């Protein structure tokens, strides 16, 4: 994955647990180069090692860590130098989800080695959104990635001043996520 993910992980730990925790995580991973560069490609093993070690050092499950990191990813991307892209993708969750694949496709022009996931908005209504998530990484990392996307969708709800419940079910070619919007959740 690109170093941008690692920078987000670093930001996540520094914000929530302080700089010493990040130093501890990097020491525990025994990585020789901890100066991640956003535009550089790193092996997935490096990313997995960082995230698993983060969970260990913070004393939480990998699933919880991935969800929390997914939520932070939205905060990180939406407030960093990449914010204009986030803003261009739409000012509502529905529009944003519609444009997410286009965003990923366009970013690949700059990050050609990126293996971007796909988010296909299957249906959208006032009560719920149904999104099909597909990634060629699901084969080995279905569990952690499902939790990451759950956190990410939760982060997007918060970004667009919404709340809701997110559930997921495996599909033949990916994972289907259902976002039940808060008003609908309350009525149910």
């Amino acid at each position: 994955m690109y170093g941008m993910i690692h920078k987000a992980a670093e930001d996540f730990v520094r914000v929530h647990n302080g700089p010493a925790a990040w130093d501890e995580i990097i020491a525990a991973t025994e990585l020789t180069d901890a100066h991640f560069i956003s535009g550089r490609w790193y092996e997935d093993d490096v990313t997995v090692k960082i995230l698993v070690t983060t969970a260990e050092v913070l004393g939480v499950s990998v699933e919880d860590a991935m969800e929390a990191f997914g939520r932070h990813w939205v905060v990180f991307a939406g407030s960093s130098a990449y914010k204009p892209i986030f803003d261009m993708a739409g000012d509502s969750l529905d529009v944003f989800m519609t444009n997410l694949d286009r965003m990923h496709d366009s970013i690949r022009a700059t990050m050609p080695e990126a293996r971007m996931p796909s988010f296909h908005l299957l249906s959208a209504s006032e009560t719920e959104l149904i999104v099909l998530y597909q990634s060629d990484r699901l084969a080995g990392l279905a569990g952690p990635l499902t939790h990451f996307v759950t956190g990410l969708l939760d982060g997007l709800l918060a970004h667009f001043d919404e709340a809701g419940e997110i559930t997921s079910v495996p599909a033949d070619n990916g994972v289907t996520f259902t976002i039940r919007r808060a008003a609908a959740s309350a009525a149910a």
Partner: protein
Amino acid sequence: MTLSLSPSTLDMLLPAHILAGGDGAIHGFGPSLLRHLGEEAIGKPLLDVFTIERPVGISSFADLQNEKRPILLRANAVRFLRLRGVALQDGSELRLLLGHVPDLGGKEAMHSLQFPDFGPTDGSLDVVLSTVVREGLLEDTQRLLTALEAKKAAAEAANEAKSRFLAQMSHELRTPMNGVMGGLDVLVVMGLTAEQAELATAAKKSAVSLLGQLDEILDFSRLEAGGVSLEEIPFQPLDLGREVQTLMSPLEDERGIRLSLSCDNIPPNSLIGDPGRIRQILVNLISNAIKFTEQGVVSVVLGWDENGDQSNLRLTIKDTGLGIPEEALATLFDRFVQADSSTNRKHGGAGLGLAICQQLTDLMGGVISVESTEGKGSEFTVTIPATMAERPAPTTAMPVQPQVVTDKSRPKVLAPAPTQQLNILVAEDIVLNQTVIQAVLQQLGHQVTLTNDGEEVITAAETGAFDLILMDIQMPGVDGLEATRRIRALNSPAATVPIVAMTAHAFSDDRKRCLEAGMDDFMTKPVNRTVWVKMLERSQSFRTRQAS
């Protein structure tokens, strides 16, 4: 072939299209322009709402109707809106099939356009996103650079602190050693009983050995800290060899080892390099050779090799000693390593000498190597890139044939036989050192006046008639450097009296600072009797020079 598109398909494919009537009025927009310009723009003349930037010269709607080349428009009311495409006549109407051309340097366009403004085939969006991503990456790299610069600055500050500490340690260790060695120097020539003399000599040997270890550790630490800078000055290698030979003579005398010095193709010109560091390598290698040789000869050859543009000074130190086991050769230049633990016990030493030689050689861009046969001896070769000075060396040329200079009949103690009694003014703040200096100089037949700091020495120099001033550097109040500068500025004969630094600051930068302050010579504490005698001899030449 006719391609018919429904309005909704056209809106999806080209969200920034424009439809104009035959009269030039806007009849409709795609959803993108509708969002940015509003419905109120519909009905207005196209050329009132947009300026045609390309092709140049289109000033009427009729011109546009006949234009087959690509066109570039800019919205007059919303300046960041630039559109490019073609104008196609569709019956009585004109269709402008357009896409956005955002100003990539303008933040307004970046912040105002959204994904739906771009058609699915419009690569401009990729360019916009790419620009944002690249700016982000640049910012990220800049942050990394700033962080690394901060770390570099911190490391440099730490290194500087380490260098300062080493300099201070060097001073603090050498100062008491001056008292120890000077006191022993005086003691051994005071008519002691045989037993007392033996003990005093043993104490002196231990002190010399201790000083050697201190020097090695401090040198090594300084090299490790990167605190050693090289000089680029002219020097004559043979003079340097003779100087080292003289320096090493007490060791060879002691051990009964002969030390020979010869040269091979050494040019008459001076070389440009760092004689101090080359001297240090020679001293280390010769000391080792003598240390590990039970009997026989240690031969030193100074050579000069030219190979095309590359010229090297070659130092070869060969001994007939123990030799080095083959398995030990690979790690011989590693720090803290000696050939084996038994030699370590027998010969002592911190095992830093060869590591220092290698570091100094590396620093000078040279190569150090060794060949050895166990039981027969070792040969160390150091080649150091050097250039020749333009002019031949001035005076001290010695015969360029191999020669054995050493002679077993050399006297072991230099006799106190001054050619002339000197009136010497000494600035030294430590009482023990004062006592030792006074004793040594008086034993050598000179008169001594002691002062305790810089102020006192200036006053004494101004009011007395002295042949020589010995100046400590680190003193309370006015230090030795400042005192020298003030004496040199005096409007009296005292301004020309030779001044010799006598300091525990042992690094080459210290020597440079002393000479720059106006001193004539430099002695590093602890000063032994041989150095005293040689300095006093040299001081005669300062006086002669100043008189002439």
